[in-house]
């Protein structure tokens, strides 16, 4: 039995300790935001945050997550009340098929926390691990720039 803290809630998980986090999120906790893409840590569609760092949930065994904080797409907002990054992706209509978008949003959240003033090159370098095969990178980049700008402005207002 492992205890995982996901989006602020504790869950007791009955699964083998080597089970990848992604399977537990999707199958046990019904948190289907993170997607199964390659299963090899190469495409980024399963990206979640562990202690505010982006990690590939498909190659992260639950055994290493005891006592650490996991944030998934669902932790960043709800359909009724989307978070700032989700709002930016909606505003820019960044999704084509949408499969990579949860990972993109989660990694953008990490970018905002680590590099709120990221330059264009820094944005591209930081987002490079996450792939989109529809070709909507231009819109995704617009959404990321918007999210960075709006969070910066919000901080000034606050």
């Amino acid at each position: 039995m492992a205890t995982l803290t996901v989006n602020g809630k504790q869950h007791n998980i009955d699964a083998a300790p080597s089970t990848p986090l992604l399977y537990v999120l999707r199958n046990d906790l019904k948190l289907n935001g993170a997607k199964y893409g390659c299963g090899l840590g190469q495409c980024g569609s399963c990206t979640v945050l562990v202690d505010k760092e982006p990690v590939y949930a498909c190659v992260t065994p639950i055994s290493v997550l005891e006592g650490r904080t996991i944030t998934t797409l669902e932790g960043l907002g709800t359909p009724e009340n989307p978070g700032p990054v989700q709002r930016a992706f909606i505003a820019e209509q960044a999704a084509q098929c949408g499969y990579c978008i949860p990972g993109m949003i989660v990694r953008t959240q990490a970018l905002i926390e680590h590099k709120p003033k990221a330059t264009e090159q820094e944005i591209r370098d930081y987002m490079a691990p996450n792939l989109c095969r529809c070709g909507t990178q231009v819109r995704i980049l617009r959404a990321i720039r918007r999210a960075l700008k709006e969070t910066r402005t919000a901080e000034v207002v606050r």
Partner: protein
Amino acid sequence: MRRFLLGLITFGVIGFAAFFVWAWHSEIAPVRAADSTTYDPAVVAKGAALASVGDCVTCHTQPGGKPFAGGYPVSTPFGTIYGSNITPDQDTGIGNWSQAAFRRAMHQGVTRKGEHLYPAFPYDHFTLANDGDIDAIYSFLMTRDPVQQANKAPDIPFPLNIRLAAAGWKLLFLRQGQLVPDPQQSAEWNRGAYLAEALGHCGACHSPRNFLGAEKKGEAYNGGVSDDWHAPALNEKSTAAAPWTVEAVYKYLHNGFDQYHGHPSGPMQAVAENLAKVPEADVRAIAVYIASLSGTDDAAKQQRADAALMTARAKTPTVESLAATTGSATTGATDGATIFAGACANCHRSGGQSPRARPVDLSLSNSVNAPDPGNLLHIVLSGIHPQSRERGFIMPGFATTLTDEQIVALAAYVRSNFSDKPQWTGIDTRLTQARKHSGP
């Protein structure tokens, strides 16, 4: 007694004077760079291949920077030295260097103005290169795009920051002259020896260095250090599970993958990426020479390699074996076998998939069999990535996924499970060093 002292002082003064005269190099007059169209394209192409053998672009390009414009930090035990701008820019590059000035730099480690260069620029190897090859590299460099980018001063403490210190180093360790061909060996072996020793400067990383930073000549290819990575021994001291045959070295260097050893990582990755651009005959010649360092390339060596491959395949885990080792639901957060099963085995198992090719069987990996865990730790932390916008092998890094305790446990598990060599000691301190080196 007084006479003796006087004699000693006189001797010393004369000695110093002689050293200064010896160390003094005059400026070679600046020239106006010739129009790049005046260079013979065939010579430029030859120079391009030779510059790839020398891996020049790596140390003369800063991360994300323009090729050959300098700025790459070379860390040495004496401080950090930055690769210089060798584009044909008139002000900040070598645009005003004559061919004679370039030859002198390669052979003697002296700038056009006559300043001594530090031996991080491996002129102790380049001095063996013949003039025709140096001139071809000159033609290649002079036909690159000039980039205006000032050189960074070396970050070296007193008294080594005095350039004359490099002259003293040369007096002790720089031996000019040509490589004498070995008549006992084939023409191909001699070609390979020339390319590896002169331009390839393989020994700069793969040989240990003394306390003054010079390669220990008696211990050539016993293994060394490069940029916090272990550069494995290439001679009979090699810890590779499978011996290095000519074919294996050739595939490793030219294709960037060999099933008996995996693929180059760390500083070696760029070396192989550059050798992919070199004519196959030259890479094969280098392979003939390098393989000869660890014994004759005969049927017995190939048999040993095949036996190692079979043993390694048998040790590669399967879905069933993984389920058996990690079936318990009570294993802790620092159980190496569990971490391996959940984080690594998706690719590193029998029947595992990978977009381009199956990864090496870990029992064959040089990093797993190395005397020092550093290379494995670097790979676990940062993964393996092709150069920007290039295709190649990918492994994700786990620097943020796994804690230090978990990485140490994983490395110890991988070592004990996949290598016959004794367990590493001090994995934790080595990890701290590797983390510091690879940055946050």
